């Protein structure tokens, strides 16, 4: 009884202490992501061979109860507005050829199902990996005779979100056997461990060594990319993967590589591999 009392007092003291100074290290939340009570998502999965972790964990587990709930409910998820806008873009004719995406690809729910789960992909003509943004721009120029989107054009983000959303719940899995994908993976890995900027931080410093800890109010995750483009509450906007790469790099006080530059494409290949097997969550909701 005495022990129990002491234990309680200690617990209370600890709780008061935490309330005073902020959050403490905490493991990812033990919870299951089910979209609209129907679609159960894979948010924890055994890591692929050669991965530094045993288990790959979606960033969803590192977010608050409120944020996790937003993603689980299609009507509450603010990212779904961008998915709807993306569907409009899909059906809009643009360019000299007088075509929309739908002119060739027809019903995206059939033609795009699973497509976004397998990007980046080797593009032999370009001699480099393409992500969805590059693939869409290539299609716009070659087939629609339209202007390529500028990086983070709202329509680019909406369309990528819409296309990726067609793979909701499907496992992220890229093919490293095509072309020179393995070399790009190696280059991305080097980049992942490269210390950058005045603060001298690599991606791995935070997301490999300190996931589960807090930097200020931010619960560091493994930095998986299965939810991109993701709705970020902090920015009240859809955020593309390369926008987030650049934001993170800026925070190390390093020069930001250009979006879709070889450095960031290599990094996308590598970090996508790191999340192998996680369900596509686009549009995920994050802090």
């Amino acid at each position: 009884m005495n022990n129990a009392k002491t234990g309680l007092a200690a617990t209370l003291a600890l709780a008061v202490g935490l309330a005073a100074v902020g959050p403490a290290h905490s493991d990812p939340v033990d919870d299951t992501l089910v979209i609209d009570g129907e679609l159960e998502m894979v948010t924890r999965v055994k890591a692929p061979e050669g991965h530094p972790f045993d288990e790959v964990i979606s960033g969803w587990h590192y977010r608050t109860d409120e944020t996790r709930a937003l993603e689980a409910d299609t009507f509450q998820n603010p990212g779904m507005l961008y998915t709807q806008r993306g569907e409009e873009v899909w059906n809009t004719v643009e360019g000299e050829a007088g075509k929309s995406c739908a002119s060739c690809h027809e019903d995206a729910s059939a033609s795009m199902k699973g497509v976004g789960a397998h990007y980046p992909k080797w593009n032999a003509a370009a001699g480099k990996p393409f992500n969805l943004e590059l693939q869409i721009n290539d299609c716009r120029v070659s087939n629609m005779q339209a202007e390529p989107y500028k990086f983070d054009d709202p329509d680019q983000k909406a369309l990528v979100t819409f296309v990726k959303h067609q793979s909701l719940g499907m496992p992220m899995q890229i093919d490293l056997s095509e072309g020179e994908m393995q070399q790009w993976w190696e280059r991305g890995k080097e980049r992942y461990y490269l210390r950058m900027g005045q603060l001298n931080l690599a991606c791995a410093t935070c997301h490999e060594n300190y996931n589960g800890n807090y930097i200020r109010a931010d619960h560091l995750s493994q930095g998986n990319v299965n939810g991109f483009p993701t709705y970020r509450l902090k920015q009240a906007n859809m955020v593309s993967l390369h926008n987030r790469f650049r934001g993170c790099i800026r925070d190390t006080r390093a020069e930001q590589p250009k979006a879709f530059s070889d450095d960031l494409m290599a990094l996308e290949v590598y970090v996508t591999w790191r999340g192998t097997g996680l369900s596509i969550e686009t549009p995920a909701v994050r802090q």
Partner: protein
Amino acid sequence: MLKIGLAAFGACLPMSIPAGAQTASDATAETSMTGVPGDPDTGRKILADRKLGNCLACHTVSDMSEHPFQGDVGPTLDGVANRWAPEQLRAILVDAKMMFGDQTIMPGFYTLKVGVDVAEPFQGERILTAQQVEDVVAYLTTLTKDPN
């Protein structure tokens, strides 16, 4: 123990502790880098300032509980003055990698041994001035209350 007279180098010269010349925990920076005593009140502000020390990003300090959302990547600074002497605190701040090894997440606050591709406004610049390091050391030496 390796003693480094930083005052001799002056505030405008890079720190030069020879790498591998001592075990990490032996590193100290004995002397004030400026000759001007640190001001603990200023140091306290530097700790919280996100553009300066931003120490609360990674460390908790009970004495600064008016600042919410303190991080836990590094150990609490409560009682830090009982664990490290001022010259050790100075050495950690100047270049934590000398004390804790290359893999530490902690940036060096008065070093030019930094990462690649430093953004233009920060090129050739240290995070803190020598006097700011002294101010932070002065504040840290007041933190004598051990964590609960």
